[in-house]
């Protein structure tokens, strides 16, 4: 059990996908302006990550069995693109209420590098199937956490009056630097807690 908790918390805090590994920066900067958009995007990414890894991990075993590991990138990205499309259609058809809140974010996720990132990472780290799923959940929750925290910072930034050249994206990146700095405080925490 401890190893699952260790993977989960290190993915959320120590190796936070956005603030430490720089994966999924585009939606992080683009959709974090409002709290509810940030939550919607975060939940959609978590869902897609879980589904993607649940498919790509067994697929990797298949690629290895056939000796065609070099097709990993092509296969994974096509699986993710198809999955996102299917998920959107399924949500629209069967769970329209969920589609209304999450569905609009789904098409934005196909080329979100954090989804492909977690799929490749789970393979590279040599996780077992349950470990890979926990890692995907952790990566998604970490993304959600970063989005929610940053949407709060963004709403305060609206009032700020930085020098002309810093308006817009530059001051947002500086704010992200300060949030990232706070996440540096977590390094080592998980190792101490779970003795990994």
């Amino acid at each position: 059990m401890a190893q699952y908790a260790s993977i989960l918390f290190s993915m959320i805090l120590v190796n936070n996908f956005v603030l430490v590994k720089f994966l999924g920066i585009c939606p992080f900067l683009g959709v974090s302006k409002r709290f509810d958009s940030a939550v919607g995007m975060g939940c959609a990414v978590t869902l897609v990550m879980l589904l993607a890894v649940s498919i790509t991990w067994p697929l990797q075993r298949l690629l290895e069995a056939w000796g065609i590991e070099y097709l990993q990138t092509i296969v994974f990205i096509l699986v993710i693109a198809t999955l996102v499309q299917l998920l959107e259609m399924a949500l629209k058809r069967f769970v329209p209420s969920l589609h209304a809140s999450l569905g609009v974010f789904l098409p934005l996720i196909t080329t979100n590098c954090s989804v492909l990132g977690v799929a490749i990472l789970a393979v590279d780290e040599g996780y077992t199937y349950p470990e890979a799923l926990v890692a995907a959940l952790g990566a998604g929750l970490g993304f959600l956490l970063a989005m929610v925290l940053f949407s709060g910072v963004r709403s305060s930034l609206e009032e700020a009056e930085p020098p002309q050249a810093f308006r817009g994206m530059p001051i947002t990146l500086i704010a992200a630097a300060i949030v990232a700095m706070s996440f540096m405080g977590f390094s080592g925490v998980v190792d101490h807690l779970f003795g990994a």
Partner: protein
Amino acid sequence: MTSSSSSIEPSVASTLSRGLLAENPALRQMLGLCPTLAVTTAVSNGIGMGLATTFVLVCSGTVVSLLRKVIPSSVRIPAFITIIASFVTLVMMLTKAYLPALDEALGIYLPLIVVNCIVLGRAEMFASQHGPLLSAVDGLGMGLGFTISLTLMSAIREVLGNGSFLGMRVLPLGVEPIGIMLMPAGGFAVLGVLIAASLWIEQYPDRRDGLLNDATMPAESLCAACPVQCGGVELVNGSCATEGYVSKLEEAVIAAQAELKERD
């Protein structure tokens, strides 16, 4: 997806130079920020990543352009992704075989060139509407512009954070490097300052003529892979406007909720 959408074919020289400065992917269009932030802790990594991306941009641009009349527009995105992924796989194999140290340093970010918004963005916005030669030149310009910004960014971070340039010590002994420059926080801060600097240079004529006042806000641009997702969202000076993007997203939420209400 016909070539008639561009009334005047741009010249080769202007296509090349556009990517270097005016529409520099990382600093002006704010595309491909993930690798810009992630691999720029050493100059060699920055250059390696930039050149790998350039290779993919040039090759995928050419192939997409050659196939632009064959690929039906409804399946163009999956087709583009497959083309791009093939070239990324090629780059990965070449790097692993000939530059194992670079392969080790870039790690997961090498396969992630597939989802770099610059590559798909250029395929969708340029290569699918122009001839193969121009598309290759456009890819080269964008790729070199990306390489320049990655090199600049990694030079600042390596010199300040490690006291070295391409592995050679440049700071005098006794000067302590600023370790945080190599940390994620340093990446965000350096990119923020670089973008501010490029905005400051861009605003220079307006500032000199007194046209700039506190009320003028710069057009905020962003990646979010939107040129692809929204099928070429409205572009302001060649870059995607955040405001337009976010309001589109909100419109979509409202429309979806209205549709839901109608069903009830």
